[in-house]
């Protein structure tokens, strides 16, 4: 029978994976309750990537599948990174040569208004990222 060689994932493996996924979900909620500062994002992403990898490799059986499908998936993931990274080359470095202000006109206006009111609205001040 031609399908004999299809990989059949044992139920035991599936159960192990779902337990791990549940545990990781609880872990990510737990770590987000702690204040880890800048690491918050990194930890959450690392956990999400682990969970995603588990689903892809075992539930979707990519680990046992034809290599070409893994390549397809890898290329897809790669181009998401390309899209993100190259867009950030711009958005994170705006105005690097032209010396114009980094913030937007709206932000500056909001900051000015907040200052003029003399009764500073904490929210508006907090969100003002113009140079000064």
């Amino acid at each position, binding site marked *: *029978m031609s399908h004999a060689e299809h990989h059949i994932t044992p139920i035991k493996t*599936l159960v192990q994976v779902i337990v791990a996924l549940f545990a990781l979900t609880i872990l990510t*909620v737990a770590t987000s309750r702690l204040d880890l500062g800048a690491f918050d994002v990194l930890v*959450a992403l690392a956990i999400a990537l682990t969970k995603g990898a588990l689903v*892809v490799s075992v539930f979707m059986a990519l680990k046992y599948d034809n290599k070409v499908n893994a390549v397809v998936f890898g290329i897809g993931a790669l181009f998401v990174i390309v899209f993100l990274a190259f867009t950030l080359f711009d958005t994170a470095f705006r105005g690097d040569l032209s010396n114009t202000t980094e913030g937007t006109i709206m932000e500056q206006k909001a900051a000015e208004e907040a200052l003029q009111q003399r009764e500073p609205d904490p929210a508006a001040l907090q969100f003002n990222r113009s140079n000064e």
Partner: protein
Amino acid sequence: MASTAEHPVHLQHHFVSSDQQFDASKMGMWLFLITEILLFSGMFVTYTVYRVWYPEVFDGMAVLLDWRLGGLNTLVLLASSFTVALGIHYAQVDNKKGLVTNLILTFLFACVFLVVKYFEYSAKIEHGIVLGDGFAPHGVSHGVDYATYDVMFAQQFFSIYYVMTGIHGFHVLVGMGLFAWITIRAMKGHFTSAYYTPVELCGLYWHLVDIIWIFLFPLLYLI
């Protein structure tokens, strides 16, 4: 050329063998999945750009999303992924009952997910947190004064929230349609260990929907 007598019913005329047909379908599905990933990538890029620009807003706004409900939905979707994987396992070992049960369970988990989503949406819409121009948070509930969240760029955050979860929810809806269809076919006994391609493909699709949520949950609700 092989004679038609050797052709199983499911084998289309332009394929040489069942294996060729199965491999082709599966590769097609993987290609389709990466188009889905890239579709969502646009939203993830938007999210990242605005998060880098306005981190305080994103931190502040995430408070309005209930991590309990989000977490519950994460567990529900993970469970549904598990039942799909089990279903495929049962299809591979010719256990029709196991297959049908798990497909139905998956469908039910998807329903639960959408019901929870509905409560989340309506709780926000009630307080004027809507998609687009109508954005005007107001009212107080559970000790949260929504009006204080009417700050600059809050609208962007919620636009991203609604568009991402909305498109994701749409995929869940499509998935429910697919599972309804293959459940009926499974009940009719269409699938055996020799031919279960539709189950496999729907399963792949469903796992992807799950993976997208695995990323949406921490990005929107937690950090």
